[in-house]
């Protein structure tokens, strides 16, 4: 309400200022239209006289300048007569019309875009609200007190278990999930969550128990992907590749085709199948070599961006060909002599022990 009051007051003052600017009380004040132009010409004329007196101008030149000035004044006079008063009259009706349009436009646009009822919320006034909303610890403490009094409260455990995980209290989380399974019976999701809490808590014994739980979950639900993904990656991480391969295969078989984890699952399967090493085959190595050679040829012939040069140097370094990397780096420096063009490249070269600045200082 106060907002609208101020907004209306501001608008009213603005409109009044515009209205009074028109000066309706003055009786049809006619502006001395050509006053300014005349004062300008008087100054020019005075300047010509001064120059004449100072000897800058000869008598003839001064006469010529005055003549030029006179012609200019005459021309302007005729134009001014043509212009004056030839337009639409700006009367009270137009003024009022304009003011109504201003008010209408302003309030319509504000009513559309504004939020007049929203108060400001500076940080100083907001911190208490924030504290109330955010005190997770005290909320958990309250639930914990309730659960001590009533350990069979399934809903309480269900709320608190993920909160424990969020807070990094994995042992408590595992305890909570166990209690949920005791009270409500095992499901694949709960077993997976318990296994997750155990794995996050760490330790070999916990990992073995987690694997057992994940296998149970996977057996219980033939379509459960989460447990299988966990299981496969845990097994791969523990280098138990032979056990991991069928799980990766199974989870990939469950994929619909648009899941975000497919790429990493394929990669996991490849790692597990190759016994932990992903070495490029001879054919692949040859292909990489051809691509690098192609890039090098193109850069040598046509030049390229600094990013391409950096890519070439990095490729040589990955292939272990330090000499070619050095040569490529030197060519890049020749192409981009300014150091500020070559930030990443110089860092890469320094890291790889290439010679920069011509010679190592």
């Amino acid at each position, binding site marked *: 309400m106060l*907002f609208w009051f*101020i*907004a209306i007051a501001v608008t009213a003052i*603005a409109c009044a200022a*515009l209205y009074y*600017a*028109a*000066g309706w009380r003055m009786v049809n*004040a*006619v*502006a001395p*239209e050509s006053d*300014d*132009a005349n004062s300008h010409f008087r100054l*020019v004329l005075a*300047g010509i006289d001064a120059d004449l007196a100072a*000897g*800058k*101008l*000869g008598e003839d*030149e001064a006469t010529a*300048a005055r003549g*030029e000035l006179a012609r*200019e004044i005459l*021309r*302007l006079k005729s*134009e001014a007569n043509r*212009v004056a008063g030839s*337009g639409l*009259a*700006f009367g009270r009706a137009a003024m009022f019309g*304009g003011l109504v349009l*201003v008010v209408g*436009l*302003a309030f319509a*646009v*504000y009513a559309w*875009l*504004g*939020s007049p009822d*929203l108060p*400001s*919320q*500076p*940080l100083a006034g*907001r911190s208490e609200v*924030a504290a109330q909303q*955010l005190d997770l610890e005290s909320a958990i403490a309250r639930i914990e007190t309730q659960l001590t009094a009533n350990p069979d409260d399934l809903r309480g455990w269900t709320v608190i278990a993920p909160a424990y995980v969020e807070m990094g209290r994995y042992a408590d989380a595992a305890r909570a999930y166990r209690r949920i399974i005791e009270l409500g019976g095992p499901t694949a999701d709960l077993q997976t969550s318990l296994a997750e809490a155990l794995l996050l808590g760490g330790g070999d014994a916990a990992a073995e128990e987690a694997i057992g739980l994940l296998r149970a979950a996977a057996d219980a639900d033939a379509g459960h992907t989460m447990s299988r993904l966990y299981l496969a990656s845990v097994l791969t991480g523990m280098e138990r590749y032979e056990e991991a391969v069928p799980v990766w295969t199974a989870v990939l078989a469950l994929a619909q085709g648009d899941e975000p984890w497919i790429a990493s699952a394929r990669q996991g399967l490849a790692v597990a199948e190759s016994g932990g090493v992903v070495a490029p085959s001879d054919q692949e190595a040859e292909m990489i070599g051809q691509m690098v050679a192609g890039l090098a040829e193109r850069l040598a012939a046509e030049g390229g*961006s600094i990013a391409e040069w950096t890519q070439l140097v990095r490729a040589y370094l990955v292939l272990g060909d330090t000499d070619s990397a050095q040569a490529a780096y030197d060519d890049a420096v020749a192409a981009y002599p*300014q*150091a*500020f*063009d070559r930030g990443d490249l*110089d*860092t890469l070269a*320094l*890291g790889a022990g290439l010679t*920069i*600045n011509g010679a190592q*200082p």
Partner: protein
Amino acid sequence: MSIELGHFALILAFAIAAISAVGGFVFWRSGQRIALVLSQGAVLQFILVAVAFAALIQAFVTSDFSLLLAASHSHSLKPLIFKISGVWGNHEGSMVLWISILVAFGAMVATFGRRLPSDLLALVLATQSLLTAAFAGFTIFTSNPFARLIPAPIEGNDLNPVLQDIGLAIHPPLLYAGYVGFSICFSFAVAALVSGRIDQAWARWVRPWAMLSWTFLTLGIAMGSYWAYYELGWGGWWFWDPVENASFMPWLAGTALLHSALVMEKRNALKIWTIFLSIITFSLSLLGTFLVRSGILTSVHTFASDPTRGLVILTLLALVIGGAFALFAFRAAALRQGGLFAPVSREGALILNNLFLATAVGAVLVGTLYPLLLDALTGTTISVGAPFFNLTFGALMAPLLLVLPFGPLLAWKRADIVAAAQRLIGAAALAIFAAILISALGGATISLAPIGLLLGFWVAFGAIAELVDRSKIGRIPLGESWRRLTGLPRSAWSTAIAHFGIGITVLGIVAVSAWETELVTTLNPGETAELSGYIVAFDSFDSVEGPNYLSDEGHFTVTAPGGETRQMLADRRTYVASGMPTTEAAIQTYGFSQLYLQLGEPLDDTHVVRIWHKPYITLIWLGALLMAFAGFLSLTDRKLRVGAPRRAAKPVPQAAQ
């Protein structure tokens, strides 16, 4: 509530601007009354936009994150100065800054322009209101800075770390004052075209505005260049980046406008060309805004790029520029051409200046837009880099600089080139001597360096030559010369200082291009490196905590060739809220030269350190400061000078002011 009041104030200003524009173009002939109302409207627009701007600042300072803009671009731990400057460190806020300056200039015209013919004043203010309505409308409807966010988040997203610098408080306001100031020239040009009247009084009105805007633009560009130099961490001071070009093109066109307005004011010639330049200069400013805001270019200037906004700006651009040029095409023929003059004259020299500057604008425009157009039309990505610009721009500027010293020595209407040349012999001899001396001392490593030095010295000494000539130093007693020198009109001083500034900038550019040295190396605390006689010792490396960032600091001690030692502190910061890193280079100034040191990415157990020695680099910005100072000096010279048919062969000194 202050936020909503600010929102309402901006909308009310938009409404007043929109109706003023319509009313102004309908009733401009009706007499003084409409001009008075529009003047009041211009002042009201200024007050209302100032209120809106203040509301935004208030929300940022109190970290009111119920304002979406503050939540997205501020942080409660940010130092106060960056909370304030952060208001325009983003798209929406910078549009409000743009509008603020636009209405501030409008209010200035309304205040100082009471003595303008009322039809001209009404048209100028109507055009100015039209621009305000267009930009305020764009801001309110497509990028509203007053959008709210409920519930308010606990903490804001922080400002881009690169922008958390004192440069953000200075560079955009100056640059915008320059860009937007040219809108006044644009409005005057439109007014002249609509009314069909254009005379010397018009030029007398336009030139101060062009001068003021040009001065701000010069400062803004110089500040931006220095900011990029010390903040972006690569020690480059000009990259021919499209965004830089976008500010440079209006500068070049504005420089041409200054000179052509001079011809018009003094000699009543070049009228149509001056109008054309007024339109083109502001159009280039708008083009810069479009390029920066549309998301076409990616740089530190690109805030939230949004193709929709780009389309709206493009439409605005097409309407404003297209409309102005259509008006020009229709009406220019109706304007009366001005006075006649011989090819060798002050007018002729200024036309030559305009010719070169206009061509330079064209070259930069082509270099900037061609890759964008090619990408848009064929999908081919090419980059037009520094070599293209250095070559074309350098080739265009060299002859301009060569003839520059002649200009001020030529008389209006008909001049004697031989006499002017005779008066420049001293300057030429000095320039050749200085260029040879310095080339020999510095060891010219690139073949163009001596030529560049020669040009720089020639322009600098040539600028002084006019002062020397007019005060007759050496030919009459020294006291008399001093009296003459102090009695010279300020415009003569301003011309000399501005041209001297260009020479100084050229010298800085040439020196740093020819003799810059650099060293990229790995250093551990305790080790030293040497560059161009400076010995840099890496003293220690610490991790410290700033107000809203963590910092890795390298402390260095530099021993200059003279034996003087100084401490340098270079750091790499990681900003907590955004996780973004920045590098803060350490810079020490020795005379006009600088040593620039940057702590690079940490390698396994060592640090990459980049060191540059940049001889005479500060001359580049010093020259720009001189040019801007000359602009202000010229603004204080209110004396009207007379263009006479022919000046006497021997100039007589002006009386002391």
